[in-house]
């Protein structure tokens, strides 16, 4: 995976580069916007990470320029600002995801992997998801495992749907908060953990194989054994 990183802060850039190198990705780092824009136009880049505060230029403007030039590479915006409007502005400008500094490396990697796996359109429109003996009927709002129906609350159904859409990938707590609950903030309480443990009890308890796993310090993953 070839990642373009546009980040002027050397320490943050080193942190991201080392984190992504560990999972075997190549990182090309740029400290100023102009060469980065040229490089993106040249092709061969799978993913881009832009810092929002760049010397002399807003990362959003760089993004608009790049998108205007017809570059469709998925872009994740990084920002030091936690403002509610910033997120919306970033997505409006054509960012595919948005992450507020400081962040955990696991969070960044989970989000980048989701972006890398596109197209998400297909998985969003699927009418049925199947992982091993777990089936989710998205039209009839039913789920079953090994032929037995699962008694899920609407929220648990959404949660399971979200996990299954990212089969084999780590889904972080904040990603679930955004996608399942639509919360733009981080509740102090263990909202995600509580619902996930209930879902796991319904999906995995008493089964030979566990489909949902917790990745410590990162999030959750659903995968066939």
């Amino acid at each position, binding site marked *: 995976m070839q990642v373009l990183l546009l980040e002027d802060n050397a320490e943050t850039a080193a942190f991201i580069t080392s984190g992504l190198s560990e999972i075997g990705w190549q990182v090309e780092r740029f400290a100023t916007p102009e060469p980065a824009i040229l490089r993106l136009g040249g092709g061969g880049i799978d993913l881009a990470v832009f810092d929002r505060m760049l010397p002399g230029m807003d990362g959003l403007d760089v993004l608009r320029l790049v998108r205007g030039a017809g570059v469709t590479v998925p872009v994740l915006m990084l920002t030091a600002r936690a403002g*509610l409007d910033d997120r919306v502005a970033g997505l409006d400008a054509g960012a595919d995801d948005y992450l507020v500094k400081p962040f*955990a490396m696991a969070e960044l990697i989970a989000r980048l992997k989701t972006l890398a796996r596109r197209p998400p359109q297909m998985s969003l429109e699927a009418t049925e998801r199947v992982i091993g003996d777990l089936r989710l009927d998205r039209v009839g709002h039913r789920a079953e495992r090994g032929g037995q129906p699962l008694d899920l609350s609407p929220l648990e159904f959404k949660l399971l749907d979200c996990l299954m859409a990212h089969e084999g990938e780590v889904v972080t707590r904040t990603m679930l908060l955004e996608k399942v609950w639509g919360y*733009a*903030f981080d509740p*102090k309480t263990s*909202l995600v953990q509580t*619902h996930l443990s209930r879902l796991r009890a319904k999906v995995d308890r008493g089964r030979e194989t566990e489909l949902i796993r917790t990745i410590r*310090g990162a999030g959750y993953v659903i995968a066939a054994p």
Partner: protein
Amino acid sequence: MSSPRLREILASRVFKLVLAAAAGFVALALAALWGLGAIAIAQIDAAQSGRIQERLEFGTFLFEAEGPEAIIEAVMRSGRPIWDEDAIYAVLENDAELAVLRGPDDTVLAGYPGLYAWPDEPDAVLDHPEIFHPVTAEAITLGEGYVLAVGRFVPDDRAELQTFLRFVTGALLVIVLPLALITGFLLSRSVLKRVLAISQTADRVAAGALAERAAVTGAGDEFDKMAGALNRMFDQLEATGRNIEAVSIGVAHDLKTPLANLRGRLELIDRDRKRPEDVARHAAAGEAHLGQVLGIFDALLRLGEVEAGQRRQAFRRFDLSALVAGMGESYAPLFEDADKSLGQAVAPGLDVQGDPDLIQQLIANLLDNALEHARDGARVQLSLTPLPEAAVLSVGDDGPGISPVLRDRVFERFFRADASRSRPGNGLGLSLVKAIADLHGATLELDPEAQGAVFTLRLPRG
């Protein structure tokens, strides 16, 4: 309260204005009085002069037609051409004319010899041993050296009018001006007294006595209004001061503890570097401590963002009922796991104008608060009730409630009912709830009637 000094009174605006107004009134009154007086006197003089002219013209006619004898005949009184002194009394009594005809050699031919008046001389004199009444007279030369003079006693009205005018002028100057001085003095002293009381209070507040308040007399006058407005400002000032104090202490304490813990973990990592599993444990713990610090900054930034009011542009109409019901569903399992329960009574179909993200955070913070502070086994109630003008959202438990002393302070930044700060939380959650409520023009209160801690939010439906 100290009384105003003389110098302050004399320098006061009220005093100067009263004096200026009084002087203006006096000047205006005098101008009107003297103007009208002058007109009245001129009228009297014109009437006098008209009658004198009439007589002179008649005399001229007689002289030209029949000579001096005709005038002598006409002037004659009691059969004699020359009047004696008693005749003047009759003239005075009858409001008649005085007259004298002098021949070419200045001999008096008829009339009263004591009337001296000459052509082209304005002053006339009546020489009488007992009557000193002023006269006006005019004289003409009839020809051949005959001079006819006709005069009239000046009416008493004229003199009375003049006396009156002089008296009123004096009275105005002597009575009204000192009165204005006294009024101005008393008025400005009473105004100054109130103003000084208020400004001295303000000075004391400025000097640090934040609890001082300006006296409100209850009369509802303009000073009460001013004192009321100032007191409200002082309240705000005091609250802000207390807030800053609380924030300083809160930041110092709440940031220091996790940072100190983090430092401890870093030292432990250094010590245990040969045992990777211990290092991992320390790193995880250190991250948690750091997360606490960052959480405080996030909360402060969010609070600042909400309080700055920038978020109002994101307002739109949304279904509050669905939002509240969804949150109730999300949170119910958390309450169960914490050995509490969450009851819900959410009226359907309630639309409000606002920022749904922020309202969601507001409800989440109230529920977090209940989850954290309600006793074990508590029943927490989440309800949404429609009123004609507002949507009433309440989150409350059935516990012992919050003591009245602390009730007003729960929304302050970094305020913790638990002074030891041993429980989790940063004391910013309810501050954010309050800020979001304020942004939406909603009222938020800790219901004093309710048993338990019940937060009630009234969100305008308009």
